[in-house]
Structure formats: structure tokens, C-alpha cells
């Protein structure tokens, strides 16, 4: 790890001022990703603005019926918050499908959004990676890329966003509140993360110095019809190869409102609003789900056919959508959010 100085800010304004007054500074939340990246010499901040003392840990109800998640509330406290468990069980289950209890006890909500990809080449300093070193090339295009994306990729980068939690936040249409040198603003969740394009070094649309202060959830939590289906190489403590978060409003067998997002397939949690519209007003059926799945992956691009490469994600992703929609429609299984039991489709 490189040498750095550290300040513990006690107020949000102070944190933003401290960060912007140091060249090469970074915000330190829980540190579960940043400190790890610093140990790999991937991130080399010369100054850390520690956020641990900021009063951004509360989870509070909003006047419009929504819920505000403090950016510094831990993932564990969020998943197990009574209001989250009751009104947003999809979010609770999704958080608990990721990482380990030790990591979730420290990792913050803001940090979950801002964690970096786990693409092999991003971590391997010996190989080219446009996200780590712009202009150096993308090793994943031809190298083993089982974990990489098949939707919204570019010739510069096929990395995926690794979060589970963000897949639920995309489906729930959360709003991210940020504060920076120019004041506060809100960012719709679908606009928060970005596609790689020619600038894969940028994961999100934050401006320099901006700090996530909260994540707002709208009132609708889809607590009656939801599912998070996470498919991975082992059934615990692994990143998703493909995951699907679904929230539905049902009237009998008719889908009144549908929101879903995919993880493990793109540079951001992947939402397809046209595909969601195909579901709305329709009677739930396997045929409909298969049409929706085909639409989502219509323009997918795989990067190699064998088991080291990722073309399998296209068929796996379609099947995952069909199964997740079926699960959410029927809610036939009593899902215990504490345990994510994996099985094959």
C-alpha cells in the first residue's frame, strides 16, 4: 500500500471540502473494497477522507411513503432493518445474497454502489485493462472472460458491475442523493452507473468530489411478488454469473406493473424498460416470459463459446429471467431471506 494521510470528517460539507482540498484524495467508507484495492496497488490515493463519523447512518421513512437509506448505513443493518424487511424484502434478500456477514457488517450502502468490478484483468496489474489504465487495451475480449458482460459492452471493456444490492435498487427505481462542491443533487438509479463506451475507467456519473449521502426508495416495494435469483459457480460467497431481481404487482394472474433488472451481465445493473412493458397488462405465462427474455438478450454479444468464456450467459440469462418471473408471479416458495438456496433451472 502507498503512503497516505487521513482525515476523519464529522460533517458532510467538511468531508467534501477536505477531499477537494487534497490532490489524489478518495473517500473512505467501510473500506471493504477500497482498502483491498489499495493493497493490490490498484488504487493509490495520497489522502483519505474518512466518512465513518458522518451522521449518514439512519434509515428513515419519507413523507411520500418511501424510505431513505443513509449512505453510511451498513449493508447488514439495511438488510435487517424492520422497514426494509417488511416493505422491501427484495432489497433485503438481494443484500444477503452478496459477500459475507463480516463484509456486510462494514460495507456501506454508498460504497456498495461505488465498488469496482471484479474482472480478472482489472485486478491483474500484469495485463492490459482500459478500466485500470485507459488506452492499454482490454484483455478480457479474448482471454478467459467467464465473469464478463454480454449486454452493453464495448470494444474497450466488457467488465460487469459486481453488486447484488444494486440490481434490486435498479428494479426498485431508487434515487441516489449526492453532495458535492456545487451542492446537492439527485440521480435516478438508471443514470447512476454507466456503460463503458470509450471511457470504461468511469463506472458512474458522479462528478469530481461528489459524495453519495443517501439512497431513496419509492413507496412501491413489491413485497407480495418479488424474487432475487442469483446463479453462480458456488452457492455462497461468489459473485453472480447471472442474477435477476424482479418486483411485480399482480391482480389475480394479470401483471399490473413489472420491474426487473439483471446483474452479472453488464457494466451496470441492466434494466430493459421495453421488456418490462411487454409484461404489463398481460396474463402471466411461460410463453410471455420467454418472449420477454428473448427481447432482453436480442442484442447480446458473447465473447467465446467454451466454459472459460461467457457466451453461455446469453442462454443462462434468458432462462434465469423466465424462472425469476415465474417465481415472483407464483411466490410459491416461502423464501427465507437469510438463506439463499440455489438450484438449477
Amino acid at each position: 500500500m502507498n503512503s497516505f494521510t487521513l482525515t476523519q470528517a464529522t460533517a458532510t460539507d467538511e468531508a467534501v471540502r477536505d477531499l477537494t482540498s487534497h490532490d489524489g484524495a478518495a473517500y473512505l467508507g467501510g473500506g471493504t473494497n477500497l482498502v483491498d484495492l489499495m493493497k493490490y496497488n490498484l488504487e493509490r490515493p495520497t489522502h483519505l477522507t474518512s466518512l465513518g463519523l458522518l451522521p449518514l447512518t439512519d434509515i428513515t421513512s419519507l413523507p411520500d411513503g418511501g424510505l431513505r437509506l443513509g449512505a453510511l448505513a451498513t449493508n447488514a443493518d439495511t438488510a435487517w432493518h424492520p422497514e426494509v424487511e417488511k416493505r422491501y424484502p427484495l432489497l433485503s434478500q438481494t443484500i444477503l445474497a452478496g459477500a459475507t456477514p463480516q463484509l456486510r457488517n462494514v460495507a456501506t450502502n454508498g460504497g456498495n454502489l461505488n465498488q469496482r468490478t471484479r474482472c480478472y484483468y482489472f485486478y491483474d496489474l500484469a495485463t492490459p485493462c482500459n478500466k485500470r489504465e485507459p488506452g492499454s487495451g482490454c484483455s478480457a475480449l479474448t482471454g478467459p472472460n467467464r465473469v464478463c458482460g454480454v449486454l452493453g459492452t464495448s470494444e474497450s471493456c466488457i467488465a460487469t458491475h459486481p453488486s447484488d444490492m444494486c440490481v434490486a435498487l435498479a428494479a426498485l427505481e431508487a434515487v441516489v442523493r449526492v453532495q458535492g462542491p456545487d451542492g446537492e443533487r439527485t440521480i435516478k438509479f438508471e443514470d447512476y452507473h454507466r456503460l463503458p463506451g470509450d471511457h470504461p475507467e468511469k463506472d458512474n456519473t458522479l462528478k469530481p468530489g461528489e459524495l453519495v449521502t443517501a439512497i431513496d426508495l419509492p413507496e412501491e416495494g413489491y413485497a407480495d411478488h418479488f424474487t432475487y435469483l442469483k446463479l453462480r459457480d458456488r452457492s455462497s460467497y461468489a459473485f453472480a454469473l447471472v442474477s435477476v431481481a424482479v418486483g411485480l404487482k399482480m391482480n389475480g394472474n394479470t401483471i399490473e406493473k413489472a420491474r426487473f433488472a439483471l446483474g452479472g451481465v453488464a457494466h451496470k445493473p441492466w434494466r430493459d424498460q421495453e421488456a418490462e412493458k411487454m409484461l404489463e397488462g398481460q396474463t402471466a405465462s411461460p410463453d410471455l416470459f420467454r418472449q420477454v427474455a428473448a427481447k432482453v438478450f436480442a442484442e447480446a454479444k458473447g465473447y467465446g463459446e467454451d466454459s472459460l468464456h461467457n457466451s453461455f450467459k446469453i442462454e443462462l440469462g434468458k432462462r434465469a429471467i423466465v424462472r425469476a418471473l415465474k417465481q415472483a408471479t407464483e411466490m410459491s416458495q416461502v423464501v427465507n431471506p437469510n438463506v439463499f438456496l440455489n438450484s438449477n433451472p
Partner: protein
Amino acid sequence: MSQTFIQEPLDKAAPHVVPAQAVTLNVNGEDHTIQIAPWTSLLDALREYLNLTGTKKGCDHGQCGACTVLVDGKRINSCLALATVYQGKKIQTIEGLGAEDNLSPLQQAFVDHDAFQCGYCTPGQICSAQGLINEGRCKTEDEVREHMSGNLCRCGAYTNILSAVMEVLHDGNVVVDNGVLITIPVAPTKASSAE
């Protein structure tokens, strides 16, 4: 326990070193003031500065759980924690959960169930199991397996680790008292171990 501190090892080796700062950590109920650099992990502070070597360094990347300690009753990976930001928190290590002549119920259960081979992951496993019990979320074997997934055992003692944790979890005579598990000598009523 010695309270002496050693000089930051990089002091002489590297140029432009940020000066060490006095940091006070509350570990196992005692305050310790040490001189450390901002990048000193909580794990290194415990092992190298406080001589609490029960907490183990495995991967040093938050993947194996050997470094698990409890902070304000919650289990964390001490390798990914910068020690300076843990001032004012109540830190517990394996040394604080029991003593050689007074093992914690979890330590005793690990012995009784032969829940280890080499023992390197054991302090982390026990601290993690203590955190699991503090959380009060797990009842079944499947739940305990999932919620112990942050602790790897390369000897593969998982079966016995699971049975040790299950025994303590469902022992009505074991309660959490002041952050540590104790066995109630006489138990007229069944107490919850999940508080």
C-alpha cells in the same frame, strides 16, 4: 499483555513516510495507546503492536475470515479495517472471549466436537460464530452454513465446526453476557441465546 510498541517497520525502509500517530484502541475492555501509521490495519495493530496474535492473518484481503474480530459486538474482517478509524469502538478478539482456564462455551464446543485440524482458522471461526449468535438470525444448519461462509477452513473441518456452533446456538443454558457467551451455572428457565 505488553503495552510496548514497536516502530512502524517502514520507518527506515521507505521515504516520505507519514508520521505515526497516537491511536487509542479499546481491546477486550482495556484501552491501549499505540503509535501507528494511517495504513496500519486493525489486524496488524492487534498482532504487531498489541501482541494479540490469536487473530490470524490468512489472505489479508477479506476473503478467508481468519482475521475476524468483533467490533461493538459485530464480526468484521480486521485485515480490511484501518486501525485509526476504530478509535472509540469496543474491539473483541479471541483472547477476550475466554481464558485458558475458563473457555467460552464456543471454545469448549470446538474442543468437544474436534472442530479443527491445524487450528489456524479457529480464532476467526469462533469470533464469527460469536457474531452469528449475537445477530440472532440463524436457527437451522442451512442458515448457519450460509452465515459462516465468510470463514474458510482449508483442513475441511466444516462438518465439526457446524456441529459445534449448532450445539452452542441451541444450548438454552448459554447466554450472551456483556459481549461474551457464558454458560449459566443453574438454569431454571430456558434463556434465549439470541439477545
